[in-house]
């Protein structure tokens, strides 16, 4: 039996109206709603423009000048950007930042996820353990760096060399070793911020529908399979967001490197942002520092665009 379509009995004009509501507003409605929404967007747009867009434009302007902060600015065109190409310290800082970002992102995501799963698996003292995991996030970077500096010190021996000596390892000044300094800076930075991602992943994992998990259990999924095939795919959007947060955060990493090693020894743990700070505030080279800051902004932007593109492809697949 063929059912008659109720839409057929409605005049065409009405049908168009009904089709455009509520999910698809008409062009006129869209225009009206867009105008009506502007007062709500405007404060955020103004604030964003003032604190992000204007400084970037300002910095770009400053990057075209040779200026030490005093007296007249001397126009130098793209000379500061050219200098970046030949500056060995900048090159080292850039490579260090790439390493810092790759290792830091992986470690923080992994640590955050592992801690979230651990918290999820335990029933007793969950809140206490969650708080303990989160503590490094609320301690200042300076304090965390100083604590680790003492733990890694060899004169007098800190906890790490003392424990190492129990296993017959000779004390080694890791923070003064150019091969280890950056690795340690990255790991300590990851330790400090992993708690934030633990909280985000924990909230996401908690929100996974219990019925889905039960169904998987009935289908014979073990815990690991549940994690890989059910939980992780269901929190994919959260993982993508945290990846963006981590990559952009790591590219701008500053505090632990600056406090713990000062970018040293030499330039072995120098990051783009610490070098930028030193160039402006220690060397007093505002023009070159501004050029580095523009590089940093573009670097972040390009990386995030690439990530978005990758996520887009993943969605289509």
């Amino acid at each position, binding site marked *: 039996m063929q059912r008659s379509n109720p839409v057929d009995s409605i005049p065409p004009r009405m049908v168009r109206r009904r089709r455009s509501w509520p999910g698809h507003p008409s062009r006129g409605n869209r225009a009206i709603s867009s105008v009506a929404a502007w007062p709500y967007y405007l404060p955020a747009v103004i604030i964003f423009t003032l604190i992000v867009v204007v400084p970037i434009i300002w910095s770009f302007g400053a990057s075209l000048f040779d200026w030490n902060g*005093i*007296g007249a600015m001397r126009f130098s065109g793209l000379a500061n950007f050219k200098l970046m190409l030949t500056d060995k310290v900048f090159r080292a800082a850039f490579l260090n930042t790439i390493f810092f970002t790759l290792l830091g992102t992986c470690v923080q995501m992994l640590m955050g996820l592992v801690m979230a799963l651990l918290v999820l698996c335990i029933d007793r003292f969950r809140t206490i353990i969650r708080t303990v995991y989160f503590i490094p996030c609320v301690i200042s970077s300076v304090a965390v760096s100083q604590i680790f500096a003492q733990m890694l010190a060899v*004169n007098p021996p800190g906890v790490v060399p003392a424990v190492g000596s129990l296993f017959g390892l000779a004390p*080694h000044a890791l923070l*003064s070793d150019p091969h280890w300094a950056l690795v340690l800076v990255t790991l300590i930075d990851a330790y400090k911020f992993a708690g934030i991602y633990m909280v985000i992943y924990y909230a996401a994992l908690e929100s996974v529908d219990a019925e889905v998990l039960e169904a998987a259990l009935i289908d014979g999924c073990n815990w690991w399979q549940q994690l890989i095939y059910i939980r992780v795919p269901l929190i994919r959007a959260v993982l993508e967001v945290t990846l963006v947060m981590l990559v952009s955060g790591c590219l701008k990493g500053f505090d632990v490197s600056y406090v713990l090693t000062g970018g040293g020894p030499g330039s072995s743990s120098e990051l783009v942002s610490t070098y930028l700070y*030193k160039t402006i505030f*220690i*060397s*007093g080279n505002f023009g070159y520092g501004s050029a580095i800051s523009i590089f940093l902004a573009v670097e972040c932007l390009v990386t995030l665009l690439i990530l978005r593109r990758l996520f887009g492809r993943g969605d289509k697949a």
Partner: protein
Amino acid sequence: MKLSFAKRACTCAVAVLSLFGFGGCGSSQRSGTITWLSARSASEGSIKAIKQIADEYAKSHQGFKLEFQNISDRPSYNQKLKVLASSNRLPELWDADPDPYFAKLVKDGRAEDIGKLYKDIGVTNRFYHISTKYPTMADGSLHLMTFNANAEYFWYNKDAFRKAGIAEEPKTFDELLTDLQKLKDTGVIPIALDGKDQWPFYRFLGMIPYRETGNEFLAKLKVGKESMASPTGQAGIAFLQKMSAYFQPGFTNSDATATLNLFKSKRAAITYDGTWNLPSYVDDSGNLKSDIGYFRLPMLGKGDKTAPTDFFANSGIGTAVSKGKLTPQLKDFLKYLFDKYGDVALNDYRVIPSVKPKGSVKTPRIYQDVLSDIAKVNDYAQVWDVQLDANTVSVLGRQCQSLLVDNTSTDEFAANVDKAIAQYNKAK
């Protein structure tokens, strides 16, 4: 609703108006206030002495108030100074080293002529030689007031020397290196070095060039007429490398406190430090601790261009007066300050002052000995981190660390430092 909105609007208006009103009150109340942006800690003896004198002055001068903004962390202070200078918001008084950056500020007309001020208030002859010579610019002008007179020494633990069989303090660099090896053989750390702050690197780097040429090598180096690759420059680098074999493990990341603790706990035999840290080496009565000794910069043994009494001495960070802010009241206060400062600083706070005390010296012998040493300094050794521009100093620090952890060669070290100096001179 309307009433509620009106109420809110009125509250906002009152809040905004009161903000402006209070702002106005604040600025009128602050008319006699002199702000001093200081790179010294508030707990430093020199600051305490100045505050005490300022308080006395304020009692007889209504409305006068000296307000300190202390930022003792030097990189943070330099950041603040550069931000304020670039935005033309320097306060009445601000601290600065007589370095190339300060020279630019002077050239830009930001600082008053202190030489003229000293003459006007009649205190020129009351300063120790070093305290007026150290802050003098290359063109002979003086734009910084000083409050300290510092000497730098090798401080040593007598027990460690005794244990190593060292009977006499080393007089030459060769003797110093021999003694360091003897100390190392006993298992003690020969030298504790504050590598995080980097300034001791520059001192060790400059020791041989200073003894060989006086300040000539540094003077030529900074204008690009000398090179770190020259025999004198290489001798300086080689000496720093030799010394580094005797520094504590992890010295590049060791700060001033950790270094001092190593020395005070006798795990290290020697440390190189200035008299700004003298309170760390004296007992409660202010006398040098009986188990601590000190010696001056060693000599080459032959071919020295400088006298044994000449060594690294300075007058600490100086203080500039912003151009146009030297009011008659500030001038009067500074006259009062320098009149009292020598005695108050030395006798009440055991600070070695830039100004000779007027009264009798009541301080322990070590202070008098240091004062005597400072008075004998004729051609003091100039410090590299003040003479060279900030970018070159930054490169130098990085290169020193790299060199001493075997991450760069001496040739690369010399080439990078020379390049930084050349860049600065080209930009100038």
